[in-house]
Every structure is written in C-alpha cells, then in structure tokens.
C-alpha cells in the first residue's frame, strides 16, 4: 500500500497495473514497460516473417498493412511494440502504421514522409526515449 486508502493491483494476461485512491475516488490504468514472453516473441516472429515474404512485391504501404499477418501483429496489442522496434532496428521496414496504432504516437514529421531511413530513426529514437529499446 502506498498510503491510506490507496491501492495497486496487477491483473490480466498483459500485466496491466491498476491503481487508485479510495478516499479520492480516483483510479487509473497503466501499462508497465512490456516484457515480451517467449510465446509472444515466437508468434510475432512467425507473423513478421510471413508478412515480409508475402508482401515483398507489393508497391503500396496501404496494401501491405492490410495483410492478415500485419493485422494480427497489431492485434497482439501494446506488448508487440518492443518486438516491432527490435525488428525495425535490425532492418528498416514499414512498421510505422502498426506502431502508430499501438502507441497513439507519431514521432515522424511531414518532411520525413517517404524517407524510410529518417522514419526509422525517428521511431528508434522514440523507442529509446520511452525505454522500449
């Protein structure tokens, strides 16, 4: 307990932390820095490999992100963020759409659009600043 009337609890598969203050009647949800488990990592790797292979000849990002494997990666939720950033660190690719969906952030600027290396650098910097890398 952190003080009179306050509480902190961890629940759910994603280890979400729920905390609040009984006296003030306030409560909040937060996600701790995600620690991917082995199963999640295997699932992510399998989906990422399939996505890369089956979209390698597609010309437009709008088509790549509609691939079922990419959509499933987004469906993994916020725990996929560090895995995506690790993948991006290994090899630039169009993970930006998924990262935006999962984090509600966008560290890229209008001027960076179309410059894959600049967009990658912006997201990796964001990842380091937010302790994902």
């Amino acid at each position: 307990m952190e003080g009179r009337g306050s509480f902190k609890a961890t629940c759910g598969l994603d280890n979400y932390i729920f905390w609040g203050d009984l006296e003030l009647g306030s409560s909040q949800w937060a996600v701790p820095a995600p620690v991917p488990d082995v199963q999640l990592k295997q699932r992510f790797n399998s989906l990422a490999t399939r996505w890369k292979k089956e979209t390698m000849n597609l010309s437009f990002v709008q088509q790549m992100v509609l691939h079922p494997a990419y959509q499933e990666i987004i469906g993994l939720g916020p725990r996929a963020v560090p895995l995506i950033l690790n993948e991006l660190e290994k090899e630039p690719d169009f993970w930006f759409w998924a990262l935006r969906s999962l984090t509600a952030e966008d560290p890229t600027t209008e001027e960076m659009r179309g410059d894959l290396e600049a967009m990658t650098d912006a997201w990796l910097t964001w990842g380091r600043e937010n302790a994902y890398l």
Partner: protein
Amino acid sequence: MRISDSVQFFNDFPRLDKMPRLFVATSPADVRYNCIAWAFSVTNQWWDPYHVWPKGCPRELSVGAFVRVFWALGYERCVDGRREAGYEKIALYARGDEPTHAARQLSSGRWTSKLGKSEDIEHRVRDLEGPCYGKVAVYFRRWRQSI
C-alpha cells in the same frame, strides 16, 4: 539466393516462370524506394499516396488519382506500350480500380520495374500481369527530355 529466384516470386508473377528466363534482375532488393519512385527514376524515396505524392493530387489508391499524378508530372495517356521514338512510356497496372504497380519503358523497348521492397527487373510489359498486379490499366507517355 535472389528474391527473383524464390517460390513467392513466381507465385506472384507466374508468367515469368519460364525457361529460358525472359527477365533479368538488375539491382539488389532495396526497401527505400518503390515502383512509382523508380518510374520517375527516383531511388531514395517511397512514393505512394501516404508518403511522397505530388502537391494537389488526391491522396488515394485509385486509377483516377494516379492519372492525376502522371498528368501533374507531364505525362499523357497513350494507346499502348509500343515503343515510340522520342517518348518515354509508363505502364500502370491495376486490379479493378486499385493501382498495384508501375513500370517504365527503356529506350530498348523493354521495361524496368522495381518490385515492391524487392529487386529491380527488366522484363516484357505483359509478363508482370497476374495475381499480384492484375493487368495494365493505362499507358502514359512523355516526351523524353534527355534526347
């Protein structure tokens, strides 16, 4: 192994799966540019409605929007992909109304394509038709400024 030797490649482009090969890979895979960029000889940007796109052109994945882009860059529609002296041609592929790819004609009359995040190849224009890119929807031409 080159990507253009992979099973996935020939699944996407079954017309290229012939011996002797009627296409040739002309660059390694490069994720920094795509077919539209390559159609305009750009090799460091990804051109699509969400990334680099000419000002004032609709940011949508439709044949009509792409026609506007080519007009904005000085191209006009033309009848076919036959070589015409003095003109540079581009073929726009589509599945239905959704553009899928663009190829640029070389002075030899053959065509050059950047395949997604993959390699550049030199090929015949109809050989990329199939499950991945659909069919050629529109041919464009522009006076070749460099001659």
